[in-house]
């Protein structure tokens, strides 16, 4: 059932009752707020909302930092990364067993520029890339860059297993990150000629004599125009686009793509009424591919669908999946106009959205279901999980590898989305984000947090584990069990627990069934004053472990 029909049925036509979800006591409220600048309170609540949406988790230190700024300054800062781009992944794998081992690359040196195409080596490098990416996200700077890199990865979905060539995989990924806050048109152009994309969507096989329509189709359907009701490109447009794109190939040694004019279709390409019957003049020579591509992208980006489609995708990434008519009118349409007016630079759009009344509307807070990566990376960041020193890259990569695997277990394999459409949570109506949570993945989410809270995850004889006292010590008054619970929940949850629930948890967990708060206070004080007292330290650790484990098993923890 169409999402919109579903909503209207819910509002106006109760004869449709069989199609409705289990009845809610009250219908879900939606908002009519728009893009006027948000001028309300700037408290911990709003800071955390902003951070949980634009970064992976809201770290206490980041929350405190932005509390010292205005909302506008904070968004500006998030949109202006100052940290240099991360250093590329390094060799941390054992090349043994390869036919052509990469002995020319020292352990700890990067492999990304070394054109080794041995199957074993490139497979280990793809794994190395994923581990490294997990580490980059965990160590992200105070900016939106990593969330946007993941956004583009989902948007220009490619699979490392299909691409194969690990150097291409990294190059593709680096392109996404370098352009994460740049110009969409520039990025689409770069993606079109990107070696990994040329492999993944068969562009390298697309020639005048044997055209391959794969990329020409996805360029319109998934990357630019979308599948909305007004996205009316035709099958002939797909064929015409494929012809424009003929002639590009990859050079695995130079780790680059190049144009071969002899493989290019030099006939004129006729597009449909959707593109104003544009004809792209067929060209010959070394610049033919570039010139025709530019002409075609200009044509595509001139349709109103591109900006709307991109803004809807951003909306579902940062705000909520449900785009009703109010959102379409009050948010999507004006954002699309901003995107066009700024010649497809993405930053002004994000700036407008993230500073808007709509973004900070209470009805839009707490409603985003965390993706597996958001859960895993957010857990590590919010609990400030201690990893080995950076120089011990072998152990760090091994631990990051475990976290990548947890994400895979929960159905998000970074670098390998299910297909070219990206993860279903971002396009499959009507469930959207709810697709992340099912009877298989929810227990796995709980197992992940349970394991990291209790036994920890060990690799290369190094362990990462939740350190309850370290987290509690960041809070203003951890000796007061009421404040400890309140302040912890303020950072971890977006939906408040009732006083009754908090009191029960306090009594059952922190007070061990006692009624007097001072029992916890004494235990905490004893822990601070004499951490060598194993028995008391164990008491404090176990109580906090149980408390945080319990929090993370509550449904509230799955929301951001």
């Amino acid at each position: 059932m169409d999402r919109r029909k579903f909503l209207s049925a819910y509002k106006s036509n109760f004869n449709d009752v069989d199609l409705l979800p289990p009845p809610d006591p009250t219908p879900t409220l939606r908002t009519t707020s728009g893009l006027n600048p948000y001028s309300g309170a700037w408290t911990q609540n709003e800071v955390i909302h902003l951070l949980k949406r634009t970064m992976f988790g809201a770290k206490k230190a980041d929350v405190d930092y932005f509390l010292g700024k205005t909302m506008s300054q904070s968004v500006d800062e998030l949109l202006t990364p100052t940290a240099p781009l991360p250093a590329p992944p390094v060799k941390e794998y054992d090349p043994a067993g390869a036919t052509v081992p990469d002995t020319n690359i020292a352990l700890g040196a990067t492999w990304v520029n070394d054109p080794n195409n041995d199957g074993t080596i490139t497979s280990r490098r793809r794994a190395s890339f994923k581990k490294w990416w997990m580490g980059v996200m965990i160590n992200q700077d105070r900016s939106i860059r990593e969330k946007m890199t993941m956004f583009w990865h989902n948007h220009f979905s490619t699979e490392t297993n299909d691409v194969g060539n690990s150097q291409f995989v990294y190059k593709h990924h680096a392109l996404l990150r370098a352009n994460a806050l740049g110009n969409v048109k520039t990025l689409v152009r770069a993606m079109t000629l990107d070696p990994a994309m040329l492999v993944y969507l068969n562009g390298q096989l697309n020639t005048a004599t044997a055209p391959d329509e794969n990329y020409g189709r996805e360029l319109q359907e998934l990357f630019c125009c979308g599948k909305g009701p007004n996205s009316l490109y035709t099958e002939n447009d797909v064929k015409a686009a494929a012809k424009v794109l003929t002639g590009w190939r990859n050079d695995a040694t130079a780790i680059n793509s190049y144009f071969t004019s002899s493989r290019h279709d030099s006939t004129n390409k006729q597009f449909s009424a959707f593109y104003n019957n544009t004809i792209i003049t067929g060209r010959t020579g070394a610049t033919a591919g570039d010139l025709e591509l530019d002409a075609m992208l200009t044509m595509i980006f001139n349709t109103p669908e591109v900006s709307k489609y991109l803004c809807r995708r951003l909306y579902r990434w940062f705000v909520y999946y449900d785009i009703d008519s109010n959102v379409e009118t009050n948010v999507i349409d004006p954002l699309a106009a901003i995107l066009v007016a700024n010649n497809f630079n993405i930053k002004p759009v994000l700036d407008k959205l993230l500073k808007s009344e709509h973004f900070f509307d209470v009805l839009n807070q707490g409603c985003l279901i965390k993706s597996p990566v958001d859960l895993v990376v957010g857990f590590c960041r919010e609990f400030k999980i201690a990893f080995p020193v950076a120089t011990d890259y072998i152990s760090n990569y091994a631990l990051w590898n475990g976290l990548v695997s947890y994400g895979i277990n929960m159905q998000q394999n970074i670098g390998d989305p299910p297909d070219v459409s990206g993860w279903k949570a971002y396009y499959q109506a009507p469930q959207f984000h709810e697709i992340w949570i099912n009877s298989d993945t929810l227990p796995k989410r709980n197992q992940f947090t349970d394991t990291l809270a209790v036994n920890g995850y060990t690799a290369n004889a190094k362990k990462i584990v939740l350190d309850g006292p370290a987290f509690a010590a960041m809070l203003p008054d951890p000796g007061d069990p009421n404040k400890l619970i309140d302040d912890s929940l303020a950072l971890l949850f977006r939906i408040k627990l009732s006083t009754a629930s908090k009191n029960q948890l306090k009594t059952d967990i922190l007070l061990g069934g006692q009624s007097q708060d001072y029992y916890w206070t004494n235990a905490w004080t004893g822990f601070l004053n004499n951490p060598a007292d194993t028995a008391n330290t164990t008491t404090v650790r176990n109580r906090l472990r149980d408390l945080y484990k319990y929090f993370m098993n509550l449904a509230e923890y799955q929301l951001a």
Partner: protein
Amino acid sequence: MKRRDFLRTTIPSSVVLPGLFSGFSVTAFAENSPLVQSLMMPTTDTDHVLVLIQLNGGNDGLNMVIPIDIYNNYYNARTNIAIPQNKILTIAGSNKVGLHPAMTGLRDLFNDGKAAVINAVGYPTPNFSHFRATDIWMTASDSNTVINSGWAGRYLNYEYPNFPNGYPNSTMMDPLAIQIGSVTSLTLQGPAVSMGMSISNPTNFYNLLNGVQDPAPPTPAGKELTFVRQVAQQTQQYAAVVKDAAAKVTQQVTYPTGNTLADQLKIVSRLIKGGLRTRVYMVSFGGFDTHAVQVNSTDTATGTHATLLQRVSDAIKAFQDDLKYLGVEDRVIGMTFSEFGRRIKSNASTGTDHGAAAPVFVFGKQVTGGVVGNSPALPVNASVNDNIPYQYDFRSVYATLLENWLCVRNSDLQTIMLKNFQTLPLVNTAACNAITPNTSGNSLISNYPNPFQSKTILTFKTNGGHTLVQVIDAMGRVIKNLVDRDYVAGTYTVTFDSGALPSGVYYARLQNLSDQQVRAMLKVR
């Protein structure tokens, strides 16, 4: 099938869990329907059940079980709170101790031969912190040793060594242990995972029953919260069996009202009768930290502590009567415990401060009724520093119940209890029939030989990817990482050489992403 339709058919509102104990879900069906009739068929089950009643706060054992043979010493130590001699309830066959006057229910059980009291239960070098002392009682550790698993958890890990991998299964469809309360206690913590199901965690009915689950707001966030909760409810693997067991029992004896211990025990008897094979139940009842005004000074037989004791006594009596009424009396033994007793000498605010040894009740039809041990040794003029010395180690009580009631082989007791403890005459010795340990789960790690002297060979199964096998001692310290690398899925072996390590219990822990499993290994000389 659309997901929403699926949800509608799998969790119709008529089985929403909160209705369980108010009859809601049963009345949703016609009462004479074949379904309801079949649900109400009694289940025959001879498995033994142990019910642990924790009295949180440190119960004043001396005012609960009063030494009448040395009454003067008792009285002199606590003149402002002592129970008058003429009000003490006598126990048939005992001229040493009597019960607090509020405990008529328990007195009746004694007179029926269904209750025993073990005097002065404790351990060497007692600890006076609530937290630490509770941990000691729950882990069965020595006073100076920190152990991270619970004694009942170790028992269940021994009995069901592969849990939770492969559970529930046809041999054990039910939770191994059930805790009534929001958090599963340390008692039920196995070496790696908790062996217990806490029936008030977010997805299940006790919280819902008590309205503890917070309502979802009518916002998009509330909509998603409700969605996640629905999936959680659907995936709580034991919710259905617990719900079904509860639904089979529609009539019970009348329990006292306004008594949360009685409320909890009422659920326990219902689940036992309903056919759960769950071995261990744990309930708790708080408020025993009576530093001040534990009695009314005008009538020391009344007051806060009297009310607490009356609730304990009434709840246990009703529970025992209910078990008899339900025809499952032969299957159940219960025991009470508290993290410590209180000081011999009372304080000036008609209360008592943290103390040491205290009596433990064991009750049930298969219990050997009566009094075990002598009245606690009380000095003639007790000072503020005097504490009751222990006569029996609390771990002797556990060991006895494990061996004589839960039928653990004597040779395996040490693996669970970490040491040897004496057996006490608490249980009808005919009660135990040999029970074979259940090994029907997915065994991911095992060792041979076990027990071993110096070396033992571990066999482990991995689903592929990063795999860790580590050896951990009883205190939770990692002794050795035997395996820590990527594997192709399959079964492998590795040898553990224990070298100069002392004899005792060690655990082999397997970690393969979210799969983890622990195998207890016993090193002997």
